[in-house]
């Protein structure tokens, strides 16, 4: 009888929540589509940087006055493009994507006399794309300087080793997957938001909404225990949250077909295995969050009041994962004890292709189970009192 009533309530609340089409549409647009959209937009940005880097072009104003420099640049594999006459205005308007190197009139003669002619690097720090190119231009000019100096000293019999007493080699330890998490690191955040917004409306509607409509009192006049009613409601809210979470997790799979950057597509490995792990990690969290939201909302007389009251909880869920995002690699033991942060940490590990380990998974599961029990117990305890007040 007890579980029968819970099942009846679950079925009714599930149908009721799915019929709330407008709310569902908003949730789908705002939380499920958001992640893939941001990912695709980001890939477009990365792709434009990449194609720029591949073009190997340098924009020079007054190139004809500096054949030595042009020769050096061409030997480095760069083609030299003359700057447009109004390059300053174009840079300001972000129409020109490259910084401009301005060559003074008597560059070649001054260089021969060793008078250190001044090159002017013109860029606009508000123009992000030209900023990216100015580092490259600086390195090219430094390389030109070094070549001239080495040549001059070699003529005077100075060894190259004296000029460079220390050499620097680089080795990058990052695997393609860990490099990818720099960009895909916010995916878990989007999944957590999807769970939150999926649970929110259903949780408020089954508690504060029921009070506001005046349907809680008649509901309690049925011969079903408050606990079985609350169990049914909680299961329905958690199921809606999970539905949204599953949609959100699996929406990343088609999203990666649309990635415009090849490097990003190669770095971002998100398949069925990762999606299923995401769902498994997020499921207990959705259940706990549903119970907590219901516990907050049952004390409120109207949905509006409940929205205001649940703001703190929502803020906590949105801010906690940021601890992990702003502190990548700085993963600490206590992170696994904090809901939302723990799920973020575990999902990041999945993205990096690391082993999860049984202990962290069980720990996160345990914390969520305790929270869900507390929430459901509290709602069942105060349900009668809430109905008559």
């Amino acid at each position, binding site marked *: 009888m007890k579980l029968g*009533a819970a099942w*009846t309530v679950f079925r*009714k609340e599930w149908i*009721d929540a799915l019929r709330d089409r407008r709310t569902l549409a908003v949730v789908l647009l705002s939380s499920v589509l958001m992640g893939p959209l941001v990912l695709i937009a980001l890939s477009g940005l990365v792709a434009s940087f990449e194609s720029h880097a591949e073009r190997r072009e340098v924009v020079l104003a007054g190139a004809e006055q500096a054949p030595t420099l042009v020769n050096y640049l061409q030997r480095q594999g760069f083609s030299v493009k003359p700057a447009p006459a109004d390059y300053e205005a174009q840079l300001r308007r972000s129409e020109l994507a490259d910084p401009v190197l301005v060559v003074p009139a008597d560059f070649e003669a001054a260089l021969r006399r060793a008078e250190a002619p001044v090159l002017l690097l013109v860029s606009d720090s508000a123009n992000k794309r030209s900023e990216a190119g100015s580092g490259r231009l600086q390195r090219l000019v430094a390389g030109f300087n070094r070549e001239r100096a080495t040549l001059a000293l070699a003529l005077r019999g100075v060894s190259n080793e004296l000029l460079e007493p220390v050499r620097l080699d680089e080795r990058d330890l990052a695997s393609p997957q860990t490099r990818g998490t720099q960009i895909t690191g916010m995916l878990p955040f989007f999944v957590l938001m999807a769970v939150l917004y999926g649970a929110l409306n259903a949780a408020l509607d089954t508690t504060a909404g029921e009070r506001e*409509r005046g349907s809680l*009192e008649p509901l309690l006049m049925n*011969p079903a225990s408050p606990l079985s009613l609350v169990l049914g409601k909680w299961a329905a809210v958690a199921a809606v949250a999970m539905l949204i979470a599953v949609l959100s997790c699996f929406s990343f799979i088609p999203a990666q077909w649309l990635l415009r950057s090849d490097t990003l597509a190669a770095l971002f490995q998100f398949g069925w295995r990762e999606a299923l792990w995401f769902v498994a990690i997020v499921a207990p969290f959705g259940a706990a969050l549903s119970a907590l939201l219901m516990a907050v909302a049952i004390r409120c007389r109207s949905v509006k009041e409940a929205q205001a009251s649940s703001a703190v909880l929502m803020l906590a869920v949105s801010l906690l994962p940021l601890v992990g995002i702003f502190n990548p690699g700085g993963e600490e033991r206590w992170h696994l004890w904090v809901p939302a942060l723990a799920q973020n940490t575990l999902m990041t590990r999945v993205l990096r292709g690391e082993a999860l380990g049984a202990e962290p998974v069980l720990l996160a599961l345990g914390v969520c189970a305790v929270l869900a029990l507390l929430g459901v117990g509290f709602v069942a305890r105060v349900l009668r009192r809430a*109905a008559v007040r």
Partner: protein
Amino acid sequence: MIRIEQLAKRFTPPRRLFGPAPAPVLAVRDVGFVAADGRITALLGPNGAGKTTTLRMLAGLIRPDAGRLEVDGLDVVERPRAALARMGVLSDARGLYPRLTARENIVYFSALQGMRRDEAQARAEALAQMLDCTALLERRTEGFSQGERMKVALARALVHDPANIVLDEPTNGLDVLATRALRETLQWLASPAGGGKCIVFSTHIMQEVERLSDSVVVIAHGRTVAQGTVAELGARSGTRDFEDAFVRLAYADDAGVTP
């Protein structure tokens, strides 16, 4: 049959952060009556007399401080679920689920009463026919009028064919025709053909009591002050007009309204 004896309930308002502790409110001091099967019993009393609180205690929503509540011999405090299974309660709050159809609203409650699905469907249709709202069954309850809501809420309360029917101010917000239809339904339910139900309803409207009830319980200031038929109460207070009789009985303690 419903029997209530020496019922009492006090509420303590929530304490303010600053300031003195508020005094407890005695909502019900001493209410007691017997409502027999096959009869319509009216709880008549002014606003704030304790009618709704009494009915909420009867439905097991609030625990009484003292006294006894019995439904067909079942103690409500000790066996609330068994008592609720024998009662159909139309409470003060009669909210429906706006995204469900009238039929789904009714069938939901029958499932919670433990009825089988086919049984519940048949019962929903029979009730709709009795309350003359078959056309409403497949519509979502969003946008229903007061009268339509009331019909669905009543059908929902009667879905398990209870032997005892409790209604809190059932004609609130209904127009003349809807009130008349409800009255006829209740009279039929109390008659042998309708099952000889025990019906208790609360109201503060005199005409309703005169037209509908077989016996009247007058409640004032949380106490039962008189019980009997309309004629008996008139005779007791020495007036032929029922309104005068009610005012004398209900406001006897108040200054300025001395007979």
